[in-house]
């Protein structure tokens, strides 16, 4: 009995584990793993450094270099930043934009994808060509600006939502995922008397949840990170987005004015010597704002990762 069990267990497996690795291969494996660890550190350390400086006392940061740990933990930088009046408005605008624009854009692309996946659609090839061409021969920066100016979209909220709504490649990937669904679904629904709207909302939409979630997430990320539309089309202060404020803080003296604005109100409120000594520097304020603007996306990203990896795998290979 024992012998039988032993021989069953020692039957050679078909995986590579039974094959002996040569010395060169083992060296490569070690080299690979070390390289990957270094890669991970290089990718992550800058963000960590931002956090260290943001949480460190500003006078302490200016005195000597920081490496791995903050020396004097303090929240003064964040307090300074959060009292800046434009920031809460910008946060509101950016959040609204990251909800409205992805919703609109994903719906437009998905509706077009569904319509184009129907073979009975007349002039289907012409429509596909019509939608494809501007992707390759686009308008340039200036002509798009002219069009948006004449449509009176400058300095309105809709300039965030309307222009980038339809992206051809998004609808191609969605169409590929719709083509994966069996054709009998639609046929049997039509036999039962459903019109195209019902098929779209009650069959196609629920079945495409992962693709939609993936593209919704991409759209949220690209809207959160977008600077160009604010740069080109927005001059009114109450429509500034978070990225634009960060751009101003970085480029101009906005950081100094945040500090001045804050110290005025703080001077009136407290005469604490400890507080006075911890007057924020522009760098600390910049790092605090960077932390505030960057980390929301980094927090929600792991939750969505399984969606978009799967969505891109199926869609991209087909496309």
């Amino acid at each position: 009995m024992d012998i039988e069990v032993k021989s069953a267990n020692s039957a050679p497996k078909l995986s590579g584990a039974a094959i002996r690795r040569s010395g060169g291969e083992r060296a490569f494996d070690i080299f690979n793993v070390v390289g990957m660890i270094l890669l991970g550190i290089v990718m992550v350390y800058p963000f960590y450094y931002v956090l260290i400086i943001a949480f460190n006392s500003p006078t302490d940061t200016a005195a000597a270099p920081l490496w791995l740990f903050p020396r004097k933990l303090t929240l003064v930088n964040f307090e300074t930043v959060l009292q800046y009046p434009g920031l809460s408005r910008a946060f509101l605008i950016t959040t609204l934009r990251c909800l409205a624009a992805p919703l609109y854009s994903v719906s437009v692309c998905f509706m077009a994808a569904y319509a184009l996946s129907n073979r009975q659609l007349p002039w289907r090839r012409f429509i596909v060509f019509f939608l494809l061409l501007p992707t390759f021969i686009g308008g340039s920066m200036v002509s798009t600006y002219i069009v948006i100016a004449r449509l009176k979209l400058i300095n309105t909220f809709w300039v965030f939502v309307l222009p980038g709504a339809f992206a051809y490649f998004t609808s191609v990937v969605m169409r590929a995922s719709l083509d994966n669904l069996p054709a009998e679904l639609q046929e049997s629904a039509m036999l039962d008397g459903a019109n195209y709207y019902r098929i779209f909302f009650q069959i196609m939409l629920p079945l495409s949840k992962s693709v939609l979630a993936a593209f919704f997430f991409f759209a949220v990320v690209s809207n959160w990170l977008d600077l160009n539309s604010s740069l080109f089309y927005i001059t009114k202060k109450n429509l500034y987005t978070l990225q634009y404020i960060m751009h101003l803080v970085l480029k101009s003296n906005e950081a100094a004015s945040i500090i001045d604005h804050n110290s005025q109100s703080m001077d009136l409120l407290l005469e604490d010597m400890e507080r006075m000594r911890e007057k924020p520097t522009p760098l600390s304020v910049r790092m605090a704002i960077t932390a505030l603007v960057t980390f929301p996306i980094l927090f929600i990203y792991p939750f969505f990762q399984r969606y978009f990896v799967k969505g891109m795998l199926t869609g991209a290979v087909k496309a």
Partner: protein
Amino acid sequence: MNTAVELGGSSKKRKKFRSVQTQYIGELFVLLAPALLSTLVFGYLPMISNYMAFLDYRLTNGFMGLGSPFVGFKNFDFLAQLWFYRIVGRTFLYSICGIAVSYPSALLLALCFNELRSLRFKKIVQTISYVPHFVSWVTVASIVYMFLTVEYEGLFNNLRQALGFAGRISFMQKADYFLPLLVVSSIWKNLGWSTILYMSAMSSIEEQLYEAAMVDGASRLQRALFITLPGLVPIFCIQLIFSMGNLFNSSFDQVFNLQNDVIQADIMTLNLYTYFYGIVNQRFAHAAAVGLFNGIISVILICSTNAVTRRLSDTGIF
């Protein structure tokens, strides 16, 4: 009786079905309408407005200013001037360096990911490598300035001094450092994300090929070179075609956020120039002429690269 009712019912259904078929097609067009409208207004209208490059453009003349007087190629006089070709050459240099470094390294990294033995470690490293993609160039510029500043917070200068080199360099104020900075920062930001396409292509290579190669005694290196790599070549070619189309477009976000007033004149690229003179200074016709020139070159490049790759490896976009 049942049959009669059924017959009557089914013929009614059949008639209804036929009229339903033709009637409902309009619904598909309703679903298509937003996409069509959006492409018409924000895709074709700007395309047509490129015509403004040939006009003495005023925003108020006629429909979108297109009623302005026609002046032929007067707006294209930059084509005869040296500074323009300096900008074009610089843009070309930046793009070529970016492509030459980042595309092969993405391929290499994808191959190395594939060779990792522990699945959990692979997933963790991949997740970490995607993180810089989710950050805007404003943030990257903020981090870069912090690392490279001459003052005490500058990590690079601190490292230099810790390693024994004397003096602190003000990196951001010398145009010579800009190209390496562009390349390094673009690798840092895009490397992880650009491996996704390659990973998905790798997952569609058949397992049997690997097993057959193992049976034939191929080493891991040989398997990677002769099975995995050829499977990734089509995607590499398609990406190359698209990047050829963008050869004279530098990444606006990247260059705009990393530049500052001191080095601006020395690192100006084509679309940065279009932004500063077209949108900030509102010299529309001039910038539109530059943009049109840029667009035509891109189309020529895409078509020729597509023809070349089609002949070499039978993949292409059209």
